[in-house]
């Protein structure tokens, strides 16, 4: 295990930021700490780094209890949301900083530093910017420099706080894949914080979902998506339709083709792509009406209105591939039959 957290608690005044967190992260993983804003994910990352102290609990890095160690002796690399580059230093000096501040005994000579910094800058593909100042770089470039700077001290753990949070959409997409590949090459245990579930699913090998200072679920992206541990995770990861049996959805669900609810729960979560749509042959008893649709690239998202006694309730979303949608030749106002392939039941 590379990172272990035991019973971490943190209060800010009356607000409980972290409530008894236990977490084990194996060597070499790329982990996403995912959750809505205010869930405590950044606080947790800062506690691992030593930038914040937990009220109770212990932090172990590579088996060493580092709870009382200051950040500078924890051997971590930290990448900040807003880069935190040293604005009075060139890109080269920024990356060299970690090597230059080493104690005299272990400080490498200038030749070594120069070689190493250029190697790192080549790794992040920005060696040609080595004599610029941070103010002269774009956001994506700055973040890559910040990463190179963190890697210069060969950290045993790399921690990234919303690394793509301040970047625009297209740069974000590129950097995500780039980070994944970089992690694949370097294989250093890494944790990044994000509130974007898509980003977590795309980049991470393990996802830890946090809410209200607690861990809701930890697992691989597909585990989290296919087997959400609870209603929060199911709703937070991907889109989901929520049917509450207590609110007259029971009858409707039966006509819509979902089998009699098992006794596992009272709330059904159905992914949009688990709803199969057909043009209705029995207009009067059809469960839903097409209200509108949106193009999501390869997929079409249909917005359906439930027919029957609860027409004012929330719309149902269904997704299908583009070509299938074209075959159906649906129009707004068409009545449709539904088949729900599977649902997750929660209490």
């Amino acid at each position, binding site marked *: 295990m590379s990172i272990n957290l035991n019973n971490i608690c943190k209060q800010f005044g009356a607000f409980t930021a972290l409530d008894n967190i236990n977490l084990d992260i194996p060597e070499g993983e790329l982990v996403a700490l995912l959750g809505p804003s205010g869930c405590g994910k950044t606080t947790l990352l800062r506690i691992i*780094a030593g*930038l914040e102290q937990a009220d109770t609990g212990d932090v172990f890095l590579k088996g060493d209890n580092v709870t009382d160690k*200051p*950040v*500078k*002796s*924890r051997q*971590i*690399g*930290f990448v*900040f949301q*807003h880069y*935190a*580059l*040293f*604005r*009075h*230093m*060139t890109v080269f000096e920024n990356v060299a*900083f*970690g090597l230059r*501040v*080493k104690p005299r005994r272990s400080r490498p000579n200038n030749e070594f530093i120069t070689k190493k910094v250029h190697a790192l800058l080549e790794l992040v593909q920005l060696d040609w910017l080595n004599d610029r*100042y*941070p*103010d002269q770089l774009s956001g994506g470039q700055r973040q890559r420099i*910040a990463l190179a*700077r*963190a890697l*210069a*001290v060969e950290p045993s753990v790399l921690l990234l706080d919303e690394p793509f949070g301040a970047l625009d959409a297209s740069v974000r997409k590129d950097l995500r894949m780039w980070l994944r590949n970089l992690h694949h090459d370097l294989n250093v245990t890494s944790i990044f914080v994000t509130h974007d579930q898509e980003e977590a699913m795309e980049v991470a090998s393990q996802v830890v979902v946090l809410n209200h200072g607690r861990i809701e679920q930890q697992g691989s992206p597909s585990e989290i998506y296919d087997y959400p541990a609870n209603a929060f995770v199911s709703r937070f990861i991907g889109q989901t339709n929520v049917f509450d049996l207590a609110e007259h959805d029971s009858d409707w669900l039966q006509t819509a083709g979902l089998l009699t609810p098992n006794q596992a729960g009272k709330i059904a979560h159905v992914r949009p792509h688990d709803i199969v749509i057909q043009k209705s042959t029995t207009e009067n008893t059809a469960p839903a009406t097409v209200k509108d649709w949106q193009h999501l690239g390869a997929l079409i998202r249909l917005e359906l209105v439930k027919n029957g006694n609860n027409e004012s309730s929330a719309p149902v979303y269904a997704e299908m591939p583009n070509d299938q949608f074209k075959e159906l030749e649906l129009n707004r106002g068409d009545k449709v039959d539904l088949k729900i392939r599977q649902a997750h039941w929660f209490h």
Partner: protein
Amino acid sequence: MPQSNIMPGFRPAIGLTLVYLALIVLIPLSAMLLKALQLSFDEYLAIMTNQRVLASFRVSFGSALIAAAFAVVFGFIIAWTLVRYSFPGKRLFDSLIDLPFALPTAVAGIVLATIYEPHGWIGKLVFDSMSIQIAYKPLGIVFALIFIGLPFVVRTIEPVLQELDTAMEEAAASLGATRLQTFFKVILPNILPATITGFALAFARGVGEYGSVIFIAGNMPYISEVLPLLIITKLEQYEYAGATAIGMTMLILSFLLLLLINGLQWWVRRRSGQL
């Protein structure tokens, strides 16, 4: 010519600037220069090499430099305290900083002299314990000038410290830097230009300071007589040319020093990528 600036008015703005500069700065200064030119070079040299005048130059510029240096150190600590920590009464403390700006300097001088004289509250303590006399000595001048110069330093460093991203310090620590290294390699380079500006302002103000100094200085010729006082003395004796000669020399010396400080600042900014 089509206007592309949102805010128009280059011509009236530069016109006003030039008129202001002429009326308030350039014309009085050239009048002074003209007056000083009434002296022949030998007469000028005789006035300037007078031992008493030279001593005054040493006192004025020396104490202004020392006071500005102290003001920079204390001012930085105060600005740091105000920006980084919160404590009860902070806002009150914050507004107290500006008081030397508002206070008539003569009042400040009298108060300082009363407190620091050998029988004053603090002066007595210091005199009894270390037998150092503050008031009526050159040391008194330095004290008064620190008092006058401090707000300049605090108010120039404060906004820069406020803007300084604390994440930079966290980044330095995460890279293994000690606190000293973080201060000297990360914080100091970022606030150095503002610190130099604060130093220059405190120094410039100190060289010309009259009101607060004369009450605490003791005004002993050759020892604690500042230049502004010497000028007043000369004026009272109707030595107008002599007074303007000293004034002119002071002006040129100050100007050269400020130019040097500005050059230093330019060099610091350039070296740290802020230009």
